[in-house]
């Protein structure tokens, strides 16, 4: 990291990106505080405190559950002699390809009171907080699994061996030495999970649980489209997310051990090998097996029964068009993010100082902006200054790019930071202008990270639901929208094939990302 002052052109570029990224946030804050705080009063009337408590409760429960699941599975796969470790790794990473709202559709269908499971077993306590927690924890724990697994792989075993030689039992070593050693990674994983819970729309909606995100969505689709109240709710949500971001920044600096020079000796599970494998299988079965199996089952049931007169009730465009639309928005957003992330990543990786920190922070405002909030801001902007974007796919691409730019920045920054700045300086000393030197040296060397960032954005965009629902132009359906709309009309058989294609595309992106990153530090 050079302490050099950043070049003016770079600062200008990042300022431009930061301005675009912060615009929705500014617009939402403006809307919330315009009009004499009336929006706040109406939002307050909407049980603001209760909403805040419910949202934080769900976020806390899911985060704890996901961290426990993620750490236990990561330790099993990385640090023990678990049988079939390679298969177990993929079995625990791939549930990330199943968007939680898709799982929630399957779980809600099977576990509703008086539903199939209730009829068979009498168990009907699934919806609400429990259902939301289970589905979200199963859908999001792979983030912790991957991040904690990566940290466990690179953590040096020296201190653990010292502790063991001093007579500590293996479990105590794990608890008192290993896990504290990766607490930065655990914190990062936990916060990532928490962000996702805050932004999640489909799961609580299906599980009949209200959070800030579902309440904002309700304001946006109500007859009395209440932009001021929705903006006020959004401000609170953004504030919560901002607190989490601040916590993440504090954690990020800490707890970096020297990288491992050799792998740690695996913990012997002995007789516990097979129960441990059973646990991994159970986690896979509930996180990926059940929802995907449900999708396959519904797909195999054939088309929806026709209505009267033999008319098909299934409505939307065919699968190729849906997949094309999803990929169109995904690839366009990924490309936009990859380009926009570059100056931010270079600034963050190569330069210090308050301006650099503030600008790169602002450029990542998307972390604190759940999809509904971005959509809310853009709906307001389109009704006013941005009316040229009304009814175009570009609006959707802009919204999702703002939302997911941070993912591209993270991946690109890591890659740029690994390229020694001396290479670029050498190019410059040979007469290349700064931009040309960057394009010829650092960019090619960091291309892998840029690609990973773009793929992460693609993955997120294809899985995204609420902003896509609100911002898509007339006649424009994506896989996620189709799955949601059809299943909310009870047309599961029509929804399922689109769901399978969605999961398939996500799985391919995920495999490419994880392979490039040698399985671990991608997230």
């Amino acid at each position, binding site marked *: 990291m050079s302490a050099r002052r950043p070049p003016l052109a770079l600062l200008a570029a990042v300022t431009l990106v930061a301005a675009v990224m912060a615009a929705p946030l500014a617009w939402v804050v403006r809307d919330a505080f315009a009009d004499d705080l009336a929006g706040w009063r109406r939002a307050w009337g909407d049980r603001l405190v209760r909403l805040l408590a419910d949202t934080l409760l769900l976020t806390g429960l899911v985060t704890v559950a996901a961290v426990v699941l993620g750490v236990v599975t990561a330790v099993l796969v990385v640090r023990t002699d678990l049988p079939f470790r390679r298969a177990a790794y993929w079995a625990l990473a791939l549930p990330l390809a199943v968007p939680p709202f898709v799982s929630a559709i399957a779980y809600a269908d099977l576990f509703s009171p008086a539903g199939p499971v209730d009829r068979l077993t009498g168990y009907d306590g699934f919806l609400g907080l429990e259902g939301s927690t289970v589905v979200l924890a199963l859908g999001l724990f792979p983030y912790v699994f991957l991040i904690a697994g990566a940290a466990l792989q690179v953590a040096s075993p020296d201190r653990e061996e010292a502790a063991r030689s001093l007579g500590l039992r293996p479990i105590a070593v794990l608890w008192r030495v290993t896990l504290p050693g990766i607490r930065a990674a655990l914190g990062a994983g936990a916060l990532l999970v928490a962000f996702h819970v805050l932004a999640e729309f489909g799961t609580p909606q299906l599980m009949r649980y209200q959070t800030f995100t579902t309440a904002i969505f309700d304001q946006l689709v109500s*007859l009395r489209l209440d932009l001021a109240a929705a903006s006020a709710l959004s401000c609170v949500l953004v504030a919560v997310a901002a607190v989490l971001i601040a916590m993440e920044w504090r954690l990020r600096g800490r707890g970096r051990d020297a990288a491992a020079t050799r792998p740690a000796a695996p913990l012997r599970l002995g007789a516990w090998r097979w129960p441990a494998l059973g646990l991994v299988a159970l986690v896979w079965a509930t996180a990926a097996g059940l929802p995907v199996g449900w999708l396959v089952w519904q797909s195999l049931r054939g088309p929806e029964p026709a209505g009267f007169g033999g008319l098909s009730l299934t409505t939307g465009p065919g699968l190729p068009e849906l997949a094309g639309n999803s990929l169109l928005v995904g690839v366009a957003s990924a490309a936009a993010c990859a380009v926009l992330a570059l100056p931010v990543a270079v600034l963050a990786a190569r330069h210090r100082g308050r301006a650099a920190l503030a600008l790169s922070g602002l450029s990542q405002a998307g972390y604190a902006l759940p999809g509904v909030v971005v959509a809310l801001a853009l709906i307001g902007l389109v009704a006013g200054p941005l009316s040229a974007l009304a009814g175009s796919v570009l609006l959707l691409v802009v919204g999702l790019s703002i939302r997911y730019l941070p993912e591209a920045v993270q991946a690109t920054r890591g890659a740029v930071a690994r390229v020694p700045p001396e290479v670029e300086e050498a190019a410059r000393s040979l007469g290349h202008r700064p931009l040309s030197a960057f394009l010829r040296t650092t960019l090619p060397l960091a291309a892998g990270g840029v690609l990973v960032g773009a793929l992460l954005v693609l993955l997120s965009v294809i899985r995204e639901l609420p902003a896509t629902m609100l911002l898509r132009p*007339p006649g424009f359906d994506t896989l996620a929208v189709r799955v949601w709309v059809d299943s909310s009309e009870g047309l599961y058989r029509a929804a399922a094939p689109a769901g399978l294609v969605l999961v398939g595309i996500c799985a391919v992106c995920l495999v490419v990302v994880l392979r490039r990153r040698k399985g671990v530090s991608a997230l």
Partner: protein
Amino acid sequence: MAVAGALAGTALAAIGTAGAAPAPSQVRTQHADTLVIYTGRRESLIAPALRAFEAESGIRVQVKSGSTGALAQQILAERGNPQASVLISQDAPTCEVLRTQGALQANPDRALEVIPDAYRAPDGSWIGVSGRARVVMYNRNLVRRADLPQTVQDLANPRWRGRIAAPSTREASLVSWAGALVRQLGRERAQALLTQIARNTTTLPSHTDVRKAVGRGEFALGLVNHYYYHLESAEGSPVGLVYTDQARTVRVRVRVTGPNGRVRTVIRGRQVPAKPLGVLFNAASVCLVKGGPAQSEARALMAWMTSGRAQQLFAELNYEYPLRRGLPPTNGVKPLPAIDTAQVALRDIDPVAGLEVLEAAGFR
């Protein structure tokens, strides 16, 4: 600055090429004959009808579906730059709100007069295309016939605590129902009644969720439009429906004076109550957006929606009441003359008041 320009330029180029590249079927350029329709009705219902319209008229349609209220708001927000030509609404009152706000275009097409005046804006800017009665559906395994609620007041009885399912207030037909109660009972009484009902009620996202939950037996009663009962019944669920607030015929002794001056007592049937509240009979409607593109195509759609063929399609696909004069409902739907409907004009229902009392009552 050069870098910034270059980067921004590349980004825009990337977005631009990606946005321009797709096949024509994905992002259709707006030809003059492409009709942009916002629909608050369930896609599975409206799409077959629109496909039939496309085939018969040669006009291409693009649909954006969402909640009726949100789309109505969007039309208001887009008044300076209208994107849609037509709104297909779950209910008539929302259309009337748009009309009074000046967002609709008059349509003096005589052909629309096949729809009775009650289901049509005076200036033809919106017309009802299919009728629905607001009913209570029930699970036959959970409620005995004798215990069924006969009036909306009965729904407030604590015996139904936790046993009633209602859709969210995003559903315009629920909001219209509350608006009608405000009109019929006065705001205070309607508010008190709905607050009591809300204590017994669980909110599910949509009518479809309500009918399924009642069908599988999670709730005893569901607040729905009549066709949700028929749809659930057709899937084989043990459900029934109640038209609430109907007059019953009771036998009463009446003293009559005969022509010769003699007084005698006879038994006659009498309707009790004399003026029942009745069930709300609402109309899914089509509005013509002022200044929207493809006005003549939009008018063609409105005319087509009133045609016998389209009316039959709604009746058969979704068990609704055709509104065109002289067409009876099919598929075992109770004919309109046999039902006491609420004596309140659809145009007089204020959906915003309905939404306010629902929210204050605790409906979500």
